[in-house]
């Protein structure tokens, strides 16, 4: 009998030095797909993802910037998605974190692979060129990955005293982590005011104040560049960053467009809620996190712990479960990857 799985698409920041070469390491056989991506990039006078993946050295300024990272991650993740053996895995739903939403659209065929590439490239470039401010990461769980009311109170207190010129909003709810979107004054205030807890508060390099009104200027640009015509009904249930389920043949494409190139850009992306809805409404046998990288594993596990899902009450429970019969499959981890391809 097939195992059921919720698939999660990664966001920005998941292709780092350790993942350099991921695409060709795992997907040298997916030549058509990679070639399609490369051709598209070449037409845009952009460095191809093959070149990026195969470059002699990893470079933050080359691989992490929005215009390149987005497409590179898209290529790796969608190639991973296509590598899942659907003869043994029944994918019951797809979601993603942040930019991973665009990937989820492509995975569920709400957009074609080509249009998916166009979306991530376009939005990645728009963000690279026009997004202001930045993001700061701070945990709300303790060392055991259990929600800490004390930390939440502390954060609330810091936010209540922010200076007038500081823009700060919650950008992403990411399991046991909050990601703040802020302008320069806000970033500076958060870095100064949030108690140090290495490596936090952590400012994300090359990130704008994503998922907040501070990047609202990008919305009309995205809508000008990308039309509703590229959307079609998904072939799998899609869970967005508000926890809404978009069902095959029951999806209002105009609403999906408004969400994708409106609400999703300029307001909170609640990844925690997406995971909660995914596990509760589809009760999958496993969660598959597409590569590259496996940084979503921790936040996803923290969300599971919050709901005591699968009996998980803390980090130790999760680690034990993962060592025995992993519930979260990170395709970036070879041993886990083998279970689903």
């Amino acid at each position, binding site marked *: 009998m097939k195992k*059921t799985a919720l698939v999660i698409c990664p966001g920005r920041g998941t292709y780092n030095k350790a993942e350099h070469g991921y695409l060709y390491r795992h997907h040298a056989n997916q030549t058509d797909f990679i070639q399609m991506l490369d051709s598209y990039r070449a037409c845009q006078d952009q460095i191809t993802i093959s070149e990026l993946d195969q470059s002699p050295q990893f470079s933050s300024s080359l691989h992490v910037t929005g215009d390149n990272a987005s497409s590179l991650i898209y290529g790796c993740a969608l190639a991973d998605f296509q590598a899942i053996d659907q003869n043994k895995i029944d994918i*019951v739903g797809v979601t993603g974190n942040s930019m991973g939403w665009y990937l989820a659209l492509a995975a569920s065929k709400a957009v074609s692979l080509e249009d998916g590439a166009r979306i991530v490239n376009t939005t990645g470039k728009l963000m690279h060129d026009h997004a202001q401010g930045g993001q700061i990461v701070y945990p709300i769980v303790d060392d055991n990955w259990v929600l800490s009311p004390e930390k939440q109170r502390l954060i609330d207190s810091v936010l209540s005293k922010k200076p007038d010129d500081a823009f700060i909003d919650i950008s992403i709810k990411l399991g046991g982590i909050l990601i703040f979107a802020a302008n320069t004054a806000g970033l500076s205030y958060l870095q100064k005011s949030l108690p140090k807890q290495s490596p936090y508060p952590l400012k994300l390099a090359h990130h704008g104040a994503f998922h907040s009104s501070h990047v609202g200027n990008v919305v009309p640009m995205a809508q000008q560049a990308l039309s509703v015509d590229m959307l079609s*009904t998904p072939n799998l249930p899609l869970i967005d960053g*508000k*926890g*809404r389920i978009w*069902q095959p*043949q*029951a*999806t*209002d494409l105009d609403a999906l467009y408004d969400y994708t190139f409106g609400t999703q850009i300029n307001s909170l992306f*609640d990844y925690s*809620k997406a995971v*909660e*809805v995914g596990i*509760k*409404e*589809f*009760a*999958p046998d496993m969660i598959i996190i597409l590569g590259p990288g496996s940084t979503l594993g921790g936040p996803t596990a923290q969300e599971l712990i919050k709901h005591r899902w699968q*009996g998980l009450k803390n980090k130790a429970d999760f680690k034990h479960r993962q060592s025995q019969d992993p519930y979260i499959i990170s395709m970036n981890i070879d041993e886990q990857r083998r279970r689903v391809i």
Partner: protein
Amino acid sequence: MFNRADIIDEGFKRRVTALDLPEITPPLSHTQLGLSAKTLVDWFDTQIMSRQLDLMARRTKGETFYSIGSAGHEGLAAIATASRLTDMAFLHYRDAAFVIQRRKSVVGSTPLYDMALSFSASSEDPVSGGRHKVLGGADIYVPPQTSTIASHLPKAVGAAHSICLTSKTGLEHPLPSDSVILCSFGDASSNHSTAQGAINAACWAAYQNSPMPIVFICEDNDIGISVRTPRGWIEQNYKNRPSLGYIQCDGRNLLSVYAGATSAITTARNRRKPVFLHVKTVRLAGHAGADIEMRYTDMAAIEANESRDPLLVTAALLIENNILTADEILNRYNTMAARVERVAQTAFTRPKLSTAKDITAPITPPEIAFEDTPSLPSLIQHKALFAQDSTQVSRPSNMARQIGYALTDLMQHYKNAIVFGEDVARKGGVYSVTSGLLDKFGPARVMDTLLDEQTILGLAIGAAHNGFLPVPEIQFLAYLHNAEDQIRGEAATLSFFSNGQFTNPMVIRIAGLGYQRGFGGHFHNDNSINVLRDIPGLIIVCPSNGEDARRMLRTAFDLAHRERKVVIFLEPIALYMTTDLHEDGDKLWTSHYTPPQSETTLDFGIPHQHGAGKDVCILTYGNGYYLSRKAEKTLKEKHGLNLRVIDLRWLKPLNETAIVEATKACDHILIVDECRKTGSLAEELTKLLIDNGYDKPIRSVTGVDSYIPLGPAAYEVLPSVDNIINATLSLIGKGLIS
């Protein structure tokens, strides 16, 4: 043959595969109704989710409970779309599809998982916390109902009436002023007197152009457990009621339901009139899991009924309109079956309620924040309110007046308070307690109702759902009894079954108890309150004099407002006009009215103690306290006994600690209880004292187990001053007076 659920399941798949689908008559297209194809698919998803939940419940005995299902009634999904989220819905227990569809409109909600938790009575069920399989949720404006006998109709009417009062309060209320109330029920339960009373009340109001924006949704599946509804009965019964619109639709056809519901809701919203939406549907798989239809219906009729499965109608609509193919429909159906099974199996592993403490926790509703309590008006505002009556108010007055004055101040204090009942407005009440309120606060806050206690209490419950603080009056205690379930089964249970999400705070004034000379006989002198005493969470207050009454009424309002309690304020009619205690003209049973700005509140639960003697302690309340005070004087002056007389004031819950403390030093205890002997408060008090180690003599004087007769004979079955004196003397071993 007995497992009709499986047969229905297989029948759907077989007939879709064979394209053996019902003809849609009259033809109706989703585009004609301005609906998209995706809406139809979305409704179908809701229908099959509801259906698969029912099928799951039938095969998981021991894991799920209360298997009464929604199969055949899934067309209600369309009414959720036709209405607004804020149109509060009081639902029939077969309306899972409505709840699923409405919850889908709340982004990020988890309707399937929540429903599975409810089926399996998990403590994580977000509706009742595992207390019952109820349909509801504060986020979707659906107060949970456990009603199986249409006892939710009066409160739905009450909520509808309250919507039109909100514009007059100047306050924020939960329901927008253009809301409509939805209230669904079955054809069989529409025969219940409660349903009849509620529909009658809605018509009564609408007939005189009082706004009544409500849609009564009768889900007519032709049968109530095993008893057939006579053919045409619902239509004939409701088609020609005064001021009640009537719309019929085919409950098996989503488009027909949507069209009918849209029309009904539009009428109710725009014209503020009640509408009866007659949804003709079918009941599939019997009344509940344990119900074997073959015992009362022949197989041919069962199969004919099953062939009318509304899911087949939806399949036909989807195929005829080229929205889905048969394969796609079956794939969706099977995918949903697997999904429901997985989610259910997960839900079964979640925790259950396991201690009485946890189970009973929401009987005490969560208190509201202190800042949400309105501040007391100033003394200047109080004086302005009583400007016309200042001379009268300055004089010593009886209990009736003190209650009236206190109510006046309280209505100024609590802008959301509304007073209503039979004769309370223009007449000012049978005993003039509410006299003058109409002039001061107007007809939106002081209302005469029709003569129906179920409606009065239903109005209170419904209005409380909409942020009002209702103060209904039950004219005589005996009149409560035909409406008692509105307190027992509805008001008192709401916080429990909604795990504190919904509350319906109110102060129910009931004029009652014996001894009054004006009206004779049982129906105006009822002396049994047992029907109220065992209701969990209910508070019963009984003042014996004017000063206590005004102060206790203020405490009662505070308990209702701040602690969200349902409070019974039991007013002894015989003491309303009483002014003297020992001699004519001594005025000892009167007091000066003190406004709330000039005296402290009376703490909840604290009894009053008169005297500090230890020879005998009399425990009593209401008229019994008045009589005991008379007796105490005689016992002291003629028999040299030193007594203490304790007025319990708060009859439920009893302040056990205070009672034990007040009595422990006394050599004897006499309980004077004017209510009937059997199941009396006297019994409860005796048990309390013995359980707490009181080992000296206890006696009681109670009412006789009788109804109160007319004339002087009435006093023969009630405690009297002489009874009390004799019982006291007997208790201490002295001779009786003649």
